[in-house]
């Protein structure tokens, strides 16, 4: 199978969906800066539109077009820019179908990158997907591989509900085997990235790779770690996670978000609720410290989870005294 970088896999999905369905549109600030842009050349000025720096109207307009029968994909570049338009993303798009008694649907995809720890500092680095969990009517996709990036984007575009699609900036050039042609990854299906038997590690985005690296290191110490990637946070596949914990009895959650805004906090609560009997030790979370992401490189590294912190958490969860 051919390899594609993560970013190219996402673009391939958008391109294939735009080929397949004329109602798919693409909006974004700077989405096409020259006439040679491949999307513009392929689909024309009607379907590929540059928007001004007006996130609220940009997204609201996309929601309105979705209500009127189109399927817009809005490129927002940075997760934090979504914050400008929270009314549209949380209060309008996901609630319209319900409030209308089911008369309408809002098939819009909001795409944004996150988590780039490269000195982009406090307002361009956040892992804020937690803000969108628990919003009824909204779906959240969070791919960690190139194949999943393609498959989740295609599914997102075909889904008749509003979808927030977060892609991790550190994964942008990460290559992976990506199926050619139509490829769809269903929402609500976690992936067991690395099978294991001693401990379950759940991680998202860039953290999946860190968790796998930690698992390899732990294997050298005789610990068999199972790594799970939920792939979508809404719908969230808690069944796979709980089934894993039923075998391993130990759970470590890894999340680049701050503690109370993390997906890991939600997963921990679900496992404590429905899987308590399987646990042989408390659940441990490895999240970012509760600070804005600092600019200075050593500080940036200090606040975020890494392989060492994951290994340390697993050791603590498996140690005999961890129950105290």
């Amino acid at each position, binding site marked *: 199978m051919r390899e594609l970088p993560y970013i190219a896999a996402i673009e391939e999905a958008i391109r294939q969906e735009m080929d397949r369905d004329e109602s798919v*549109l693409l909006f974004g600030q700077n989405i*096409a*800066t*020259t*006439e040679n842009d491949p999307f513009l050349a392929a689909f024309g*000025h*009607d*379907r590929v*539109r*540059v*928007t*001004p720096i*007006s996130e*609220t*109207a*940009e*997204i*609201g*307009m*996309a*929601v*309105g*077009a*979705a*209500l*009127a*029968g*189109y399927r*817009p994909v809005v490129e927002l570049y940075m997760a934090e820019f979504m914050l400008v338009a929270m*009314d*549209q993303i949380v*209060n*309008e798009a996901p*609630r*319209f*179908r*319900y*409030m*209308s*008694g*089911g*008369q*309408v*649907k*809002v*098939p819009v995809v909001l795409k944004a990158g996150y988590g780039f720890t490269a000195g982009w500092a406090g307002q361009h680095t956040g892992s804020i997907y937690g803000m969108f969990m628990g919003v*009824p*009517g909204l*779906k959240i996709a969070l791919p960690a591989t190139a194949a999943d990036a393609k498959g989740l984007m295609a*599914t997102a575009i*075909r*889904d*008749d*509900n509003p979808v927030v699609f977060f892609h991790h900036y550190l994964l942008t050039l990460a290559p992976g085997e990506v199926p050619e042609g139509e490829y*769809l990854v*269903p*929402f609500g299906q976690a992936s067991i990235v690395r099978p294991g038997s001693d401990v379950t590690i759940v991680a998202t985005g860039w953290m999946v790779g860190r968790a796998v690296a930690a698992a390899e290191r732990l294997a050298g110490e005789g610990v068999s770690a199972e790594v799970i990637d939920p792939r979508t946070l809404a719908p969230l596949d808690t069944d796979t996670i709980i089934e894993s914990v039923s075998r391993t009895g130990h759970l470590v959650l890894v999340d680049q978000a701050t503690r109370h805004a993390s997906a890991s906090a939600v997963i921990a609560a679900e496992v404590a609720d429905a899987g308590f009997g399987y646990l042989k030790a408390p659940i441990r979370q490895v999240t970012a410290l509760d600070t804005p992401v600092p600019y200075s490189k050593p500080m940036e590294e200090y606040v975020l989870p890494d392989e060492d912190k994951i290994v340390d958490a697993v050791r603590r969860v498996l140690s005999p005294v961890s129950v105290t």
Partner: protein
Amino acid sequence: MPAPITPNDGPPRAPAAAAGPAVALHLLATMWRIRLFEEEVSRQQRAGLVRGLVHLSVGQEAVAAGVCPLLRAGDLVYTGHRGHGHAIAKGVPMDRLLAELMGRADGVCRGLGGSMHVVDVEHGLMGATGVVAGNLPLAVGSALAARLRGQDQVTAVFFGDGAVQAGYFHESVNLATLWRLPVVFVCENNGFAEFTPRSAHTVVERVSDVVAPYGLTRETVDGNDVLAVRDAASALAAAAGAGPALLECLTHRLRGHYEGDPQKYREAISQAEWQEKDPIAVLRRRGLASGWFTEEETLTAERTAAEAVAGAVRFASASAFPPADLMEQLVYAPAEAP
């Protein structure tokens, strides 16, 4: 790169025919229906059968009646929290609207939306939003969809003067003018944004002056004169193929911002002034003087409207509440099977 403009190659619409007896009587009847419906909603709210926040449009009937009926069947409307009048004028059945306000299963939104979120796709009412100005970009998106389809379809969006200071407004007007989209922005300027006057919100008195730099077609009319509203709206809707337009209607909100608002912030309008401004009285005087209808016909219009409202009350009161399992089914649209 220049901003993309998708031209509308179709022929411009003809403006609506000038008002004569039939149109005038129809407009009177529409305004009576809105007036009596709103007064009934107020009664039902005090009786505890309509819950939550309701924002009535008594005094502003001429804007709804002047704009909505002249839109074509395929045209779309977005409104806001003060939207009952627009809904009725657009053709949403009063019985299903009242059932919605009472939270019943036969409501247009099956009881799940309520006063601020009325949607009736069948009649072209695409939505109402509870966040001021949140409906503006939705209308822009709707207009874009019409343009992409090459349809001769206009989207009208209603909002108050309070919405004009929201970032939403400027962003939406900017986008609509940039892409030359067929949106008619209809501003009901009643001089108040909730509980404070326009002068507390902005230095620009006229909404039509706010949008001057965008170069969009705009007009300010006496919003209490339904015929003036209708004429202006007709011209603007006809020209909407070439780009967006703004119609500012100067009007008066007789009741409080919401039902229950003690209105300590303004003097009650004098009876004499209200007689001058009441859109129903304005049309009555004009119609009688012009010989468009008789006194008897105006009373019939009022009575017929009252009967229709009474029928709506019976219908809504008899409707059951929605079942609990309905809620879970409607949170998500079924995802398309891959």
